[in-house]
């Protein structure tokens, strides 16, 4: 596996030299593998949003370097402009950025800015729409007539249509009901599986982060606090709770079971895994 994004000693200070000076990122070293699905968790104010805005060059580091495919992204202005299409960023509540008269034109905004020809833009719009499971007939509708969940999906499609190598989503399921949440997570997963692109999912929902990612990053107070596979991270309940984060509910049940003398393995976080571990414990002696 080769890294697609590398951060070296990344620091970011807001309003330096004023009374409002705030160190948002402190010496972040990080490498993100090509094709991986990375979950990023942490509280509001832990630096997650600041960090991801560095990855597509929206923010410039105060010090440190960001490498995309081994190349410094800040070597020229053109490089940054190009990077915006290689590292696609879906902001929080992206439906509030819809502006075009039709869904089609809104999704086409990114691809058009890339300077693609009409046919290619058209193909990308339809492809992106398919990924978010919306019917083609809504392409002529105004995005403002859609339901909340649909708007969110159109907005995500607008970034997917740029076909970025890295897709970053900041809290893509915030404020949605369970059904729309699942639908969007499924879309993201399908996209990742089909395109084999890199995905970075920022969320404060532990269960979602656990379930979706190969690698988890835990941010706290502007630093990268923990990093590893979900199993590794959720084996460290105490370390997580120190930052005020909670482990997934299934992990909590397993922790309680261990305290009651049931030898549950560490780092379980899905209902299925916990069930299988429990069933295995009962072995063939079960009456089932």
């Amino acid at each position, binding site marked *: 596996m080769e890294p697609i994004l590398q951060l070296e000693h990344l620091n970011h200070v807001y309003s330096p030299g004023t009374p409002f000076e705030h160190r948002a990122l402190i010496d972040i070293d990080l490498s993100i593998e090509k094709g991986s699905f990375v979950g990023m968790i942490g*509280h*509001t*104010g832990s630096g997650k949003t600041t960090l991801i805005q560095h990855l597509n060059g929206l923010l410039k580091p105060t010090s440190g370097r960001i490498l995309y495919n081994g190349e410094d992204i800040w070597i020229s202005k053109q490089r940054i402009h190009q990077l915006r299409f290689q590292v696609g960023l879906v902001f929080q509540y992206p439906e509030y950025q819809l502006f075009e008269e039709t869904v089609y034109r809104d999704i086409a905004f990114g691809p058009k800015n890339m300077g693609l020809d009409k046919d290619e833009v058209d193909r990308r719009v339809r492809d992106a729409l398919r990924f978010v499971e919306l019917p083609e007939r809504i392409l002529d509708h105004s995005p403002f007539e859609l*339901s*909340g*969940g649909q708007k969110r999906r159109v907005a995500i499609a607008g970034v997917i249509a740029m076909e970025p190598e890295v897709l970053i989503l900041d809290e893509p399921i*915030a*404020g*949605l*009901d*369970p*059904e*729309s949440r699942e639908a969007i997570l499924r879309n993201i997963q399908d996209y990742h599986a089909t395109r084999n692109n890199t995905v970075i999912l920022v969320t*404060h929902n532990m*269960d979602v982060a656990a379930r979706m990612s190969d690698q988890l990053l835990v941010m706290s107070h502007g630093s990268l606090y923990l990093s590893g596979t979900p199993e590794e991270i959720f084996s460290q309940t105490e370390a997580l709770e120190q930052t*005020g*984060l*909670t482990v*997934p*509910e*299934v992990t*909590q*049940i397993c922790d*309680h*079971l261990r*305290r*009651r*003398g*049931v030898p549950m393995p560490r780092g379980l976080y899905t*209902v*299925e895994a*916990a*069930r299988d571990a*429990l*069933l295995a*414990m*009962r072995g063939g*002696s*079960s*009456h*089932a």
Partner: protein
Amino acid sequence: MEHDTIIRTEQLCFSYLQEEGKLPYQVLDHIDLQIERGSFVVVLGRNGSGKSTLAKHFNAINLPVSGKVWVSGMDTADEALLLAIRRQVGMVFQNPDNQLVANVVEEDVAFAPENLGIPPEEIRERVDSALATVGLSEFRTHAPYLLSGGQKQRLAIAGVLAMQPDCIVLDEPTAMLDPIGRREVLETVHSINRQRGVTVVLITHHMDEALDADRVIVMGQGTILADGTPSEIFLQVELLREAGLDAPETVKLLYALRKAGWDISLDGLFAEDCADRIAAYLQKAE
């Protein structure tokens, strides 16, 4: 039992006006509901289930197309009673930014009592007491936009508390908050219910917020699909799925074990209870 009911609806129907020729879309379909004074009620349902529209009937923001809504025996359709109803049933909304009126925290809390024409000395007392209840006294003179999401939402609650209402209706107050903010808001709401005896109607689609309610109402397609205690509701895994909701992970695990042949009760909503059930089952089986 009438004196124990704070909100009562009878055959409540509501629909939005549609373009001509189209059938009106029935948002609420003959709802009969009574909410007991002092209780903590959670209303669950997917987007579009009618739960927010129902809530807006509780303080006469929406009026029934047919049927009736009473707040402490007052008909919400009676315009003369409007202020009396609204000061009794306060409302908190999803987006904290869009319900704060003033530039200073205490001024915002004072907004409702000012509207009610309460004398300044008493406004002062109410403001101080409301801010203390939600734990924001130290931010008295701050600008609301500098507060965190959870703090803003607590401020919105304080603004409603200053009316000294008998009931607070919260429409997805945690949807835009992070886990810490959610916890802050839920703890505040629970303590207001316990300590001040204020009736709480909490509308949400987060299952875990319903676990320690007195009563859970599940809405779908403008009707009440289920109504009972949390354990009665959450054990109905299939029903929840149909309503576009999700059972808590605890119940899901117990349910999965049961499907695999374990003779185990689903009654363990909290992680600890769930672990107790499993541990007890394992012990018994040995």
